[in-house]
């Protein structure tokens, strides 16, 4: 078993591996359905024991809504959720729990079959991929601290077979189990993935491995193009051993043209190479593309390619602009005219967007007909 490391308590499974959590069936949706099915079924089963079953169904719906809230707050293009969103989701779940407890006031019922503690546990489970273990533990224990005393005070006189300790434990054990399960999940995923990712990201893409005949062939062609006219001229002059005024004039013309070609060529970046094979327009007056790291280049290229492959895309309107920021970093903007509906657009581009998010800072997505996103590259 690997040694305990506190660092792994502060990162979520989503932060460490966002790609695992954007495709369906989505975890919060699954737990919302489970909440509705289990809570609804047990509310029906205990119908005869309950004076006001509508409160039970209302509680079930509220707990289900809490999981749906997590779902909407964790869509791929939204900012990562934190303690605040987690607390709101748990607060909604606890409200459903307390509503259910009120529904059982002065009614003798089987506390073991009470759905509400399980409902709150499922809300916490919905948060498991998106919050670090530390947050899951704190929010879960907070939910226990909030709900157990209230529930105990409401139902203590109506539980004939159990003492106070057992009653509190029966009420709180589903949430406590969820705390342990979600924290274990988050910790184990982060602790096993983090070293692998760090090890992977240390691997340099070897220039030797990247060497290929096609690249070298292209470069030989480029060399031939540069020297196509000047080389035979220089050879003829060298072989003749004399220089005429016409030779000097031609040498001047060739030199001027060659200098223009070399300046143009030296200003071409890898992003221009991508633009050469597409209708992408690149604005990079300060040659910032050359400062991008390999990981950032791969992630941006993948996103641009995915955008160009998206149905309903006007590829000619794709614009990438790089500018230097006052702090020395590079601000990058990507914009495109896109007809694809928001949902399909997000799902198509999500894996590329999420991957880009691991390589850059301050990634933002604009929600309108035009696809716009911007991010910063650290200096």
């Amino acid at each position, binding site marked *: 078993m690997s040694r305990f490391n506190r660092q792994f308590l502060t990162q979520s499974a989503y932060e460490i591996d966002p790609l695992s959590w954007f495709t369906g069936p989505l975890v919060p949706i699954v737990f919302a359905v489970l909440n509705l099915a289990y809570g609804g079924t047990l509310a029906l089963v205990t119908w005869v024991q309950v004076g006001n079953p509508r409160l039970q169904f209302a509680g079930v719906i509220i707990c289900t809504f809490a999981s749906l809230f997590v779902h909407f707050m964790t869509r791929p293009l939204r900012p990562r959720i934190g303690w605040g969103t987690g607390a709101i989701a748990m607060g909604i779940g606890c409200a459903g729990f307390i509503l259910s407890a009120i529904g059982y006031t002065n009614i003798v019922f089987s506390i073991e079959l009470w759905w509400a503690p399980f409902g709150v546990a499922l809300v916490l489970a919905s948060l498991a991929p998106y919050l670090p273990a530390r947050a899951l533990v704190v929010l879960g224990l907070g939910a226990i601290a909030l709900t157990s005393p209230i529930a105990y005070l409401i139902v203590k006189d109506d539980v004939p077979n159990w003492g106070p300790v057992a009653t509190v*434990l029966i009420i709180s054990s589903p949430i406590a189990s969820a705390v342990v399960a979600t924290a274990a999940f988050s910790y184990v995923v982060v602790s096993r993935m983090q070293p*692998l990712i760090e090890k992977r990201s240390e691997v340099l893409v070897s220039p030797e491995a990247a060497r290929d005949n096609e690249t070298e062939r292209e*470069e030989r062609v480029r060399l031939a193009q540069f020297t196509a006219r000047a*080389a035979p001229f220089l050879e003829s002059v060298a072989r003749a051993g004399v220089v005429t005024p016409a030779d000097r004039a031609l040498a001047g013309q060739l030199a001027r043209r060659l200098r223009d070609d070399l300046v143009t060529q030296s200003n071409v970046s890898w992003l221009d190479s991508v633009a050469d094979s597409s209708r992408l327009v690149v604005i990079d007056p300060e040659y910032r593309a050359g400062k991008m790291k390999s990981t950032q280049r791969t992630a941006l*290229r993948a996103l641009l390619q995915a955008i160009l492959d998206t149905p309903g895309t006007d590829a000619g309107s794709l614009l990438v602009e790089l500018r230097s920021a006052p702090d020395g970093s590079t601000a990058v903007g990507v914009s495109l005219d896109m007809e694809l509906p928001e949902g399909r657009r997000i799902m198509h581009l999500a894996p590329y967007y999420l991957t880009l998010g691991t390589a850059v800072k301050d990634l933002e997505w604009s929600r309108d007909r035009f696809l716009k996103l911007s991010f910063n590259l650290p200096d």
Partner: protein
Amino acid sequence: MRVRVLPRELAARIINGTVATMGWAVGALTIVLTIPVLIETLIARGRAGDIPLPLALLLFVLLGIIAVARWRRTEVVVIFLVAAGVATIIYQLALFAGDPAIVEEALYLVNRPTLALVAVGVTAASALSGVLWCTFGLAIATAVSLISSLVAGVPFRPGLGPILVYVIAVVGYLTFAAIQNAQRAKVPNFDELEAETGRLARGEDLMRRTTAAVHDTVLNDLSIVMNATDTLDDRVVKRLLDDLEQLRGADWISHTTDIPTADDQDASLRNEIMRMVSDFQWRGLSIHVTGYGTGVYRLDPDVAQALVGAVSAAFENVLRHSGATVAELELIYDEDVITVMVSDQGAGFDPAAIAPDRLGVRGSIIERLESVGGAARIWSSPGSGTTVMLTVPILEIVQPHPESQHRRNPG
């Protein structure tokens, strides 16, 4: 550095494996939380003296879970399921002894250890094996409850708890499996993308070295020629030839020396046109050249000579008759012909009014090109300038001129 994305299969194995870890954690917690319930319930039922045996059995099951989490091997889990199953039977029989009503009044206490049997499996790499382990655990938990009820003669009450744990575990495994299945179609292959990034970086590096080498050799050598005396000394000649040899060998660019050298014939034609342009500029006609590309085209020597002659004649006419000081020369590349357009904004003339015996245009341009398979057309009118279009066949395309973005992407 590589993209911070794990291969999907590896991520799937890790996530599937956590379900078992969660099972161990929940199983252990369930046993721990059962201990105070056991003590309080048995004291309340007047059976404080019966506490040690079921308490010891709970601790035994707890130790078993710790052992499974510690060693994580199939045989350890199987031994645990058998041993914990037997311990749970004894635990339930100890609770039933002299108090059969406990199965109805405190089923929650009775069936707690069976939850641990369902939850504790092995670290399953796949969802299917995870589901199978949970099913195996549920079967043992159900068998334990059945055996206990038969031995004690109490009603068979497995309870909702084990089934609930089973349902959650199966839903968890199936959800992860469905997510991973959907991802296989949606997540790009970042290994391939990284390889392509590496290729582009390598190309960029080669490009830098190429431009630097051309700058240091050819460009400097042209400068030497521009400023050289009429006769080159041996040292300069040697430098020019060494530089050309360096480019041909090109050890700096790669391990291969197979670098295409310039096409002499193509270069000769282009240089001839350039010399001509330079000559006319000295004579007062400024010529703007457009359409020069990086392609390498080979013409039949007679065709090349005819083309240069026709272009020269066209510029002679501009210089002598049009009154213009500026002319345009545009090269247009097609698959089988090269077209040269010579145009000016000078006085112009009426082509129909030219006498048949005038050799200037007909002989030096039209017939010259027609004799080598080419063609010439002239558009002109008084006061509107003149355009001469010269077309000759291409013998061979060594390196095609890159197609323009505009032509590749109409609209």
